Structures are given as structure tokens and as C-alpha cells.
């Protein structure tokens, strides 16, 4: 398994697309730093960009990577190792490479900018952590889709739809729900709805670090209290854990009954 992970990782970091992806982050970070010396502004702009890009890249990269490696994976399947080990190693190679892209692309320029001397160190870490987390979750969903659907066009379409759902449609449904139920106390519902979508969760964790909690009025107060409390952190951790464990469980189930 370790050797599969190693080779999957090597394959990824030598890929042109990962190179372009890292370059994109480097470029954006450097450009933002040059446009505004203010680390808060740079971090706000970067968080807007990463929240949009990482899930999309994660899911598209993931599906594509699987479809392109399918024949090689078949060859591995004839070796005396279990399917699950092969897939989890492949997936981990991908996820680690994506996270590394983020750490290099965003982390390096900001470190040179002197982020560790500014008052925004915790926001910086949250941003990197959330970007990595979204990459991990969405590339896992990508593998799930790709393994489930042998047809590449179908798989890619579903990946795009799923990304659209979590990035945009879900929030629309949340807003609709809140509008319909606006006469009821909504803070618990709002919090639960945010917990259920990793992109929203990441966005809110970043927002709270941006001091926008003050803007959130009562809900903001409830929210920052909730997240500050140990129960809140526990639920957030649990939500993120479920977002990796459940897809992994489903992936495992599909693998056990799939013909290659």
C-alpha cells in the first residue's frame, strides 16, 4: 500500500495540471500581496478564491485522475493486494498532492510576506486548513463518483453537478428555508444547516476569524458562542469526520461489488 501511495503521489506531483494549479495559487497570492500590503485584505481575497476553487478543483481533478489511471488501477487489481488498499492509497496520493499545492501556493508567498509576524496567524492557519479540508473531502467525493460511474462523460457531469450543489444550490435552499420559516427561532436550524455542508462550514470558520461575527448580530453571537464552546468544536470536528468517513464507507461498499 505504501508503494502505491508513493507512486500515486509521485505521479501527481509530476503532473502538468498540478503544476498549473500550484502556479495559479502562487500567482494569485503574489498578485494580491503586491496589490495590497495589508495581510487581512490578502487573506480575505484568498479565502474567497479558495472557497470557490478548492472544491471544484478537488472534484474535477479527482474524477479525471481516476479515469486516466483506470487501466493502471486494473493492473494493480491483479496483484495480491485488496481493492480497498489500492484505492485508498491512490486517493491519499491525490489528496496529499492537492494539499501540498495549497500549502506551497498560498503558504510560501504569505510566509515571505511575513504573515507570522502579523496579527493574522490564526486566520492564515484556518484558511490553509479549510482549503486542505475541502480538497480532501471533494477529491474523495470525486473518487466515489468515478468508481460508481464507468462512463467518463457521465462521471464528470455528475461531479460538476455535485460541486454546483454544494457551492451554490445548497445555500439557495438554505436561504429559501430561512425565508419560509422566518417567524420561528432559527439559530439552531441555521447552525445545523451550515454544519451539513463542508463549504459553508469552512466559510463560516473563516468569517468568524474575520471579526464579522460582530456583524452577525444575534445569530452571530450564538454562532461564535457555539463554535467557541467545546460542544461546537466537537460537532464541527464530527461533521468533518463524517464527511470523510461516510463517503469512504460508500466507496468501500461499491468496491466490494464492482467488476473491473
Amino acid at each position, binding site marked *: 500500500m505504501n508503494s502505491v501511495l508513493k*507512486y500515486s503521489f*509521485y505521479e501527481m506531483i509530476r503532473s502538468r495540471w498540478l503544476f498549473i494549479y500550484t502556479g495559479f495559487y502562487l500567482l494569485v497570492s503574489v498578485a494580491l500581496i503586491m496589490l495590497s500590503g495589508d495581510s487581512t485584505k490578502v487573506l480575505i481575497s484568498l479565502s474567497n478564491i479558495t472557497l470557490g476553487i478548492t472544491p471544484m478543483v478537488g472534484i474535477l481533478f479527482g474524477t479525471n485522475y481516476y479515469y486516466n489511471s*483506470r*487501466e493502471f488501477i486494473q493492473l494493480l487489481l491483479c496483484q*495480491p493486494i*485488496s481493492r480497498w488498499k489500492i484505492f485508498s492509497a491512490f486517493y491519499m496520493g491525490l489528496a496529499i498532492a492537492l494539499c501540498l499545492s495549497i500549502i506551497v501556493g498560498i503558504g510560501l508567498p504569505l510566509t515571505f510576506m511575513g504573515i507570522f509576524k502579523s496579527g493574522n496567524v490564526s486566520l492564515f492557519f484556518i484558511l490553509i486548513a479549510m482549503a486542505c479540508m475541502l480538497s480532501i473531502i471533494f477529491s474523495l467525493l470525486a473518487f466515489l463518483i468515478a468508481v460508481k460511474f464507468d462512463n467518463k462523460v457521465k462521471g464528470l457531469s455528475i461531479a460538476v453537478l455535485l460541486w454546483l450543489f454544494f457551492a451554490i444550490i445548497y445555500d439557495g435552499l438554505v436561504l429559501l428555508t430561512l425565508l419560509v420559516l422566518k417567524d420561528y427561532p432559527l439559530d439552531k436550524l441555521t447552525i445545523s444547516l451550515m454544519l451539513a455542508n463542508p463549504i459553508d462550514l469552512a466559510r463560516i470558520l473563516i468569517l468568524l476569524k474575520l471579526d464579522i461575527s460582530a456583524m452577525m448580530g444575534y445569530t452571530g453571537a450564538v454562532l461564535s458562542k457555539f463554535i467557541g464552546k467545546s460542544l461546537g468544536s466537537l460537532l464541527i470536528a464530527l461533521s468533518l469526520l463524517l464527511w470523510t468517513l461516510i463517503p469512504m464507507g460508500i466507496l468501500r461498499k461499491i468496491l466490494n461489488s464492482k467488476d473491473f
Partner: protein
Amino acid sequence: MIEIKQLQKKYHKLVVLKGIDLDISGRGVIALLGPNGSGKTTLIKCILGMVLPSGGQIFFNGENIKGKNEYRNDIDYLPQIAQFPENLSAIEIIELMKSFKQGETREKALIQLFGLERELEKKMMNLSGGNRQKINLVIALMHDSPVIILDEPSTGLDPLSITRLKSFLRNESNRGKLILLTTHIMSLAEGMAEKVIFLLDGRIRFNGMMTELLDMQGGQDLESSIAQLLDNETV
């Protein structure tokens, strides 16, 4: 060695294998023949555990292979189409594939046999189709396992390499190995195989010695014998 009982495979409504009973054992080269869509690749994939049977059982050395993967230690397999990670070099892939099975490997001899010494450091994406197939062969054969399964091994190979492959396989057979091979090239099968399994429409139509098949159909060679067999079917 490989024992197959009432093997069935359905893909939704399409039935590909309709109850296969087979006992493959001993040594020597066995040619698995049949027209396109007759179920050859599915049968091989079932043996390798890549395709899960809809019914029946497969035993390897007396053990049901269902849910197992260790038995694959004893099988070398050459897939019909192999694609490798494009950004890795040939030698890196060989090293990777070496790591999965125990025992001595003999990739050096095979690299020499196919004249690949200069290609090893190149990335897979920069290799010609023929060289990729040779790398594919090196990987498939380097482990020296007792069973070798080859799916269309001659695809994309130049005549010299085919000759070398043939003599290599003959030698393996003489060393006591069991070699199962599918091919469209009848001369290859005829020149190598002692036994023939003929699949048609998901069923076994012939399973026996090559000479027996030739005698039975009265053809001059394997190609005409097979044609004869197919003719009889359609009548």
C-alpha cells in the same frame, strides 16, 4: 490448479458466461480461443478476481478465491491493454510492480530479452506503443509465478520480439509452468499450445488437446478447424 464450477456472469440482462465448468491443471500452454464477445476476457478477469461471478465458484489450489487476494501471488497476468501512469519512468513502474509480490524477480533478463535497456529512464508518455507493450510484458513475467495468464500478448510487438516471447514461453512451459493465453493469431496458438479451450457465446464448445481438435474437424490447421467448428454451430 484452477477449478471452475458452473461459473456464470451477467451484466444486467446480458449473460456473458453461461455456466462454465473447467479444470485447468498440470503444465504447458493452453490456448483460450473464441470470437469477440465470447467471454474470454471475462473468464480471465473472473479468475483474477477483477470481475465478480454472478454464480458458481472458482478454486485456486483447492481454495475458493471469493474475497481473497493472496492467491494472486501465484499468477502473472498480462492485460490486453495496459496503461501506465504517464509521468512515471519505466523503471519506476517496474520497481512499483515488483513490490507487490514476494520472491525473486528476473526483470533484468526480460529487459535484455526485449532490448529495453535504453528506455528505462524515459517517462511512460514518451515511449512508443511497442515499447510500452514490452514493458507490460516485463512487468507481467518478471515474478516467475507458477501460472501465467496472457491476454493478447502479441499486440503491437515486432516479429523479432514475438519470436523471443514465444521461445521464452516455451522455455517456461518446459520449466513446468501453466500458461493460459488468448489470442486472435491462430498461428501463434498453433505453434505454442498443446491444449485448446474454445469458448462460444458464454459456453465451452471444445476443451481438449490441440491434436484432438485438428483430427476431429479434419482441417489442415487450427484456423480452418476453428472455422469448421463455427460453421457447425451456425447450421
